């Protein structure tokens, strides 16, 4: 079976520093893959290359057999890759609802003229994304806070909202950068369930970065380990847990 997302020898150099070197990934449809590694290993840099924030110094990215190399971030999102950020990037002064509505941006079709004359088309689409957004908010029980400013949400809810905003783009692949960072034990548990739930419901392929081993080992089918930009191991959670190279990388670090 051919991979949905494939990278070949993906490399990112910042001046002298090689943040990621020869990263090879093949994501099949519906997989849930974890990307782990000590601090500064290059995990977020991989996400930034996959989403076009950084232009790789070397290597190729292919989605469904089409190259993503030269594309801008917004084009890549339109092709079906959505993401969240390690340091939450919500539209803080906008309402929770507007944040999710904005996630629908690429699926909106009415033009500036329809906006100016407030045509029926305008109302229909606005009504539809309002309903769709409210439905999405229900996934994390946020619908009651729809009219709060995003910055007034509790920390955990902000992480949730960011996931919903990414989901609203209707992606094929969802990249989650440390979704459980800063969450407490019970919140992490419920997040694990939700991630699996949305994978099924939206027919998603998920790649996630996470330091919380319980989450990674609990839900990922396959794990890649980065250290100093190198892929030092990959395999099932069991294999990774017993891999001496991985243990050394983690222990050697602390």
């Amino acid at each position, binding site marked *: 079976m051919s991979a949905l997302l494939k990278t070949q020898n993906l490399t990112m150099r910042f001046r002298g520093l090689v943040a990621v070197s020869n990263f090879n990934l093949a994501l099949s449809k519906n997989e849930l893959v974890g990307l782990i590694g000590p601090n500064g290993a290059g995990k977020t840099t991989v996400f930034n290359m996959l989403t076009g*924030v950084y232009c790789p110094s070397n290597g190729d990215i292919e989605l469904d057999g089409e190259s993503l190399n030269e594309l*801008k971030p917004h084009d890549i*999102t339109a092709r079906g890759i959505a993401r969240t950020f390690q340091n939450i*990037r919500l539209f803080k002064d*906008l309402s929770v609802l507007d944040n999710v509505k904005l996630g629908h941006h690429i699926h909106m079709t009415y033009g500036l003229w329809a*906006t100016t004359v407030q045509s029926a088309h305008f109302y229909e689409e*606005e009504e539809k994304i309002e309903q769709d957004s409210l439905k999405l908010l229900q996934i994390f029980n946020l619908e009651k806070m729809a009219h709060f400013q995003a910055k007034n949400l509790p920390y955990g809810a902000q992480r949730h909202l960011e996931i919903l905003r990414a989901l609203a783009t209707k992606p094929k692949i969802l990249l989650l950068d440390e979704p459980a960072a800063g969450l407490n034990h019970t919140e992490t548990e419920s997040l694990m369930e939700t991630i699996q739930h949305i994978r099924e419901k939206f027919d998603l392929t998920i790649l996630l970065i996470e330091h919380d081993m319980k989450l990674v080992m609990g839900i990922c089918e396959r794990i890649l380990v980065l250290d100093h930009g190198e892929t030092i191991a990959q395999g099932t959670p069991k294999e990774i847990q017993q891999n001496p190279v991985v243990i050394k990388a983690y222990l050697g670090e602390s």
Partner: protein
Amino acid sequence: MTPHSIFRQIILFIAICLILFIFNIVTPYVLNAYLCMIVIYCGINIILGTSLNIINGLTGQFSMGHAGFMAVGAYASAACSYYYLSPLLNSLSTSSFITLLVQQFFLVIALIVGGGAAALFGYLVGLPSLKLRGDYLGIVTLGFGEIIRVTILNMDSLGGARGFTGIPAWSNFFWIYFFVVAVVMTSFRLMRSYHGRALLSIREDEIAAESIGINITGHKVRAFVFSSFFAGIAGGLFAHFIGYLNPSSFTFIKSFEAIIIVVLGGMGSISGSIIAAIITTILPEALRPLQEITKLDFRMVIYPLLLLTLMLTRPQGLFGNKEISFSFLKRKKSK
């Protein structure tokens, strides 16, 4: 008939035109010439402030050359009517009523030429500079404004430093407030659409905006063109109201006045821009008696002091990013 059909919009349009028409006829009887002029300047400043608010307030880009776009619009529309439309109008020998109609039609053409020219310049200036991040836009637009002014200063066909005289004074309350309504209504409607939300998202966080598929350069350029278009219209209305243009009306001071309106009203608040435009137009006039008593221009002391006080006590501007709510006017949402 659905409540939001095109029919409803046409009725609204006709109603607004009628009100403006009555306003146009009645105002000169009610107000003296001086007060009329203040009302006109309020209108022009509302157009300037509201249009700049789109780019500086909603999109969060810092343009400092609004006077430049106003100048382009003013001179382009003035040249259009002075060199082409006015001679054409004089060559028509029809009844005075028809002439009046044609004249008003020509005014609209001249305004659209002015707005279009300003929008074109907006595109040419915006496309390269809006791709860059941060303060480049401010510097480029500031430079652009000065280049435009100096260029006009050296163009004899536009009167150069002596000024451009003999522009037909075709504009009136109706057209000035027609465009006030136009820019305010389109701004409000834009804000409630996904186009407007995209602009707000760019102001909030460009990287996040890109990550959800928003073409930030495209949206910034569109906002900039829209904003420049209305600055050009404001320029055209101004030119055809006083019938005389001088490059010194379009220095960077004028751009700063527009910025003050946006900041004072609250970045991103349309109602704020309107109120602030009215305040900044009336306040210096209201302080004029002070100047006559003291023989010193105290206005330029008190006016900045007031602004300073406001910025210290309410740094988010009069309205923050809120709007005056007209929800009581809207039809109740049927559940």
